[in-house]
């Protein structure tokens, strides 16, 4: 089994990254703050005003460390990519399948189905653990949403065009986010959830979710690249310049499980409060530096938790799941598997 490699997040304004031997060194005002041997890392994420030497960037590309730049609100800015590697035959097969309407839809269906089932699991878990303390209205709403997601999942299983799959996915998202607010416990006004908003997120809960999605996208795309797939050519997501469509496809399975659940548990455990957010003039809500660090720490810790992979039946850290799924996807495209088994969380 692949080793789970760590990700280094640099969020300090004005930090300077350089290469020293086989180490990544983080400097702040000329003083060394951290030193990490590169073989421990699978990714490097720079948030905000962080610069890196060209020697370091080249070295990261060579050692298979994905470098991603985000702005302080978590919006993706850029990534640094080395020479294209991996298996050209595999990529050709990927392009062929995305062009073939039927085969493309068959794969897109797997992603959508897993996403809906995982959304349902998030709701089911909340019902299982907290139903007795819930108000009657939220209980009813959650139970109704659970039934509707079961129904959409059933419809997503039928053979159909990618277009209508997108419709079903949208419907499920609507149902899910309509009741997402009920999953937030307590009566704090800070985290009232009134529906999904993005670009920019308009409330703290949305800001959290959006930031987590960006982190997860980074992990998904490096997982795909590791197994020689082209993250830009997707099945469910259409090609668009600069968009990592396949990474977004893979992301769908993991959104509810990793991102949404982490956001919920941070909120419900009162790990964040009003002071952790800043509201801009245009209504956008941003995380302040400390909150971002808290979030990154929680995210990294969650990724270290071991779970059993639903298809392979092996135990592995959560953070490796995108890698295992990317590997299964590569195997499907090679023809070793008849159908891609998406990540369905129990």
């Amino acid at each position, binding site marked *: 089994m692949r080793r789970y490699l760590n990700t*280094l997040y640099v*969020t*300090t304004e004005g930090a300077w990254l350089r290469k020293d031997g086989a180490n990544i060194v983080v400097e*702040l005002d000329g003083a060394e703050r*951290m030193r*990490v041997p590169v073989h421990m890392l699978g990714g490097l994420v720079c948030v905000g005003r962080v610069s890196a030497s060209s020697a370091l960037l080249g070295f990261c590309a060579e050692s298979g460390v994905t470098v991603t730049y985000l702005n302080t609100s978590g919006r993706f800015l850029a990534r640094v990519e080395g020479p294209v590697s991996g298996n050209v035959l595999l990529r050709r097969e990927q392009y062929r399948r995305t062009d073939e309407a039927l085969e493309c839809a068959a794969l897109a269906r797997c992603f959508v189905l897993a996403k809906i089932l995982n959304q349902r699991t998030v709701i089911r878990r909340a019902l299982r653990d907290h139903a007795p303390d819930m108000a009657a209205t939220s209980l009813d709403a959650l139970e109704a949403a659970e039934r509707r997601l079961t129904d959409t999942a059933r419809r997503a299983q039928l053979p159909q065009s990618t277009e209508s799959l997108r419709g079903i996915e949208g419907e499920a998202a609507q149902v899910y986010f309509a009741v997402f607010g009920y999953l937030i416990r307590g009566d704090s006004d800070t985290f009232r959830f009134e529906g999904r908003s993005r670009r920019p997120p308009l409330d703290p809960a949305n800001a959290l979710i959006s930031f987590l999605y960006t982190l997860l996208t980074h992990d998904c795309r490096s997982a795909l690249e590791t197994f020689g797939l082209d993250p830009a050519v997707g099945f469910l997501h259409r090609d668009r310049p600069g968009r990592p469509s396949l990474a977004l496809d893979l992301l769908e399975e993991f959104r509810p499980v990793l991102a949404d659940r982490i956001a919920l548990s941070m909120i419900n455990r009162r790990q964040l409060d009003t002071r952790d957010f800043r509201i801009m003039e245009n209504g956008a809500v941003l995380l302040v530096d400390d909150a971002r660090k808290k979030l990154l*720490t929680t*995210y*990294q810790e969650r990724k270290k938790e071991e779970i059993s992979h639903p298809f392979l039946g092996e135990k592995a850290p959560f953070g490796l799941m995108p890698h295992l799924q990317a590997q299964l996807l590569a195997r499907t495209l090679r023809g070793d598997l008849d159908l891609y088994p998406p990540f369905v969380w129990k």
Partner: protein
Amino acid sequence: MLMLVSYDVRTTDSAGRRRLRRVARACLDHGQRVQFSVFECEVDPAQWVALRARLLKEIDPDHDSLRFYHLGADGKRRIEHVGAKAVLNLEGPLVV
């Protein structure tokens, strides 16, 4: 697996000081300095073979000594630290 590498390099001449620098550099590339000439290296078997070969190439066996301690996959558990020199947990969340 976690490896503990410690060394003594004779530094009475300039060739010795050069060996010391180069041994330290090899260890630093693969792990973390926990004391002046003690390194903890989290490496997989292949990386360990490379590091070991590199170290053996650098030293002069007549004057220097190298010690390798195999702490295994859960080596972290076998370590207790007291006192100054905080070390970084390279497998924990890395956020600066």
